């Protein structure tokens, strides 16, 4: 059994189509306002006089890229530590799950998480979050988001194996720095990737997250 399941996201392959977000919503039957996987778009740059002929040429360095974000099933999950009822637990395979029968609906995990993973269901009065499609995993299938990606930008596996294969990058804008929770995520950066907290751009689709 895996010790720490993790997602791999290839930002250089992602075209921002959001099929992963929709596949997740469909598979998990998520209501309006709740999206366990979301595609954040980040961009920046502008028009600048060209260094060699500033009088003649105005060039642009505008860039944008997408970041598919779900629960990071962190190695040091702030939500699990914050939860007053032990409704949030980290399984032996690293997956962070919420037991809704135990949840008191205080939303404290929502404050604690830097990735917006725990989301509140108003109708039920309890928190919900990405389950890593543990039901599909148990049947030997892949998470819905991974299988839906037309660009094959999403993968999953054991964190140490993903790191050996793709490197250790896990903090690219608009994600926060990784030191808070040690996210189980491996990113293959986009060519315009901006390091967390040092980005020159901004989140472009905040209202739809």
């Amino acid at each position: 059994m895996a010790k720490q399941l993790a997602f791999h996201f290839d930002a250089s392959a992602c075209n921002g189509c959001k099929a992963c977000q929709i596949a997740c919503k469909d598979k998990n039957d998520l209501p309006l306002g709740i999206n366990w996987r979301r595609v954040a778009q980040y961009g920046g740059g502008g028009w600048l006089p060209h260094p060699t002929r500033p009088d003649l040429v105005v060039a642009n360095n505008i860039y944008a890229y997408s970041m598919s974000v779900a629960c990071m099933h962190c190695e040091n999950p702030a939500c699990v530590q914050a939860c007053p009822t032990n409704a949030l637990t980290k399984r032996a395979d690293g997956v962070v799950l919420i037991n809704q029968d135990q949840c008191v609906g205080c939303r404290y995990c929502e404050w604690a998480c830097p990735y917006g993973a725990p989301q509140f269901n108003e109708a039920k009065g309890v928190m919900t979050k990405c389950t890593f499609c543990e039901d599909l995993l148990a049947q030997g299938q892949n998470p819905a988001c991974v299988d839906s990606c037309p660009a094959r930008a999403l993968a999953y596996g054991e964190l140490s194996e993903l790191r050996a294969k793709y490197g250790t990058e896990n903090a690219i804008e608009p994600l926060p720095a990784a030191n808070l929770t040690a996210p189980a995520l491996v990113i293959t950066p986009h060519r315009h990737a901006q390091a967390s907290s040092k980005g020159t751009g901004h989140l472009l689709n905040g209202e739809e997250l």
Partner: protein
Amino acid sequence: MNVREWALITFTILAQMSVGSFIVLGVVHYFVGKKSGEKQADELSDRALLAIGPVLALGMAASLLHLGNPLNAYKAVTNLGTSWLSREIFFGVLFAVAGAVFAVMQWKKIATFQIRNLVAILAAVIGVALVYSMAMVYMMPTRPGWNLVTTPLAFFTTTLLLGVLAMGAAFVANYWYVQSKNPGCASEQCVLLRDSLRWFAVASIVLLGFQFVLLPLWVALMAGPATASAAMLVGEFGGVFALRLAFVFLGAGVLGIFLFRAASSPGQEKVMGTVAYLAFALVLVGEVLGRFLFYATATHFGLQ
């Protein structure tokens, strides 16, 4: 802001007021007991003590409105190992129990004065632990406007300020009650009540000074890690912030001076009463506005 956030404002303000009242009353009881004996001290504080319980109970009831699934509320003390929220609820319940035990012992005069004192000190220490864990709940790196040393300092200042002025109002009510039984109010009780009110006035002015250092410090500390919060506090919510400062300044400062003067001169009972009630009301509104701003200006670090 919605019902859930107002539930948190109500809970934190009332719980802090009850802890502060309990501590202030304990201090007064100790000094009066030393000066004029156990009997006078008990007579002075017993009625005020009974007002604290309902305040705490009301606050804790309000906290349930914050929950999406209150039926599971009893499970919220099961993660004491890592969750400050669990610890907050644990100390809240423990303070309620210890305070109630002490109130019953004091009311029925169970056990000796010394044993009752020990129970009271224990309850006060639990109260301090409650206010500390209330502050620690908000000390999370994902909430940069809260994760500052000013959060615990402000919570303790609110605790004492509301405690002093709530007890001021309670003592004035007690004064009128004693006076109605003993017209002219020449008894030692009346002198002790007036003395206490003078000290409350001094304490509220000192605490106001402390708060007027803390608030600019909060804005200054926020400016780095939570620029948006600081901007909201002086921009979008600038009017509320100004009102918050004005209410506390008028209540604790200006009326504090009037209270000191009125309590110093016998024959000014009516003024003293009105001033003490008004000071409490103004500071309560000011502190509620302050707590509102605490939540309303919060920003999140990372994706939300």
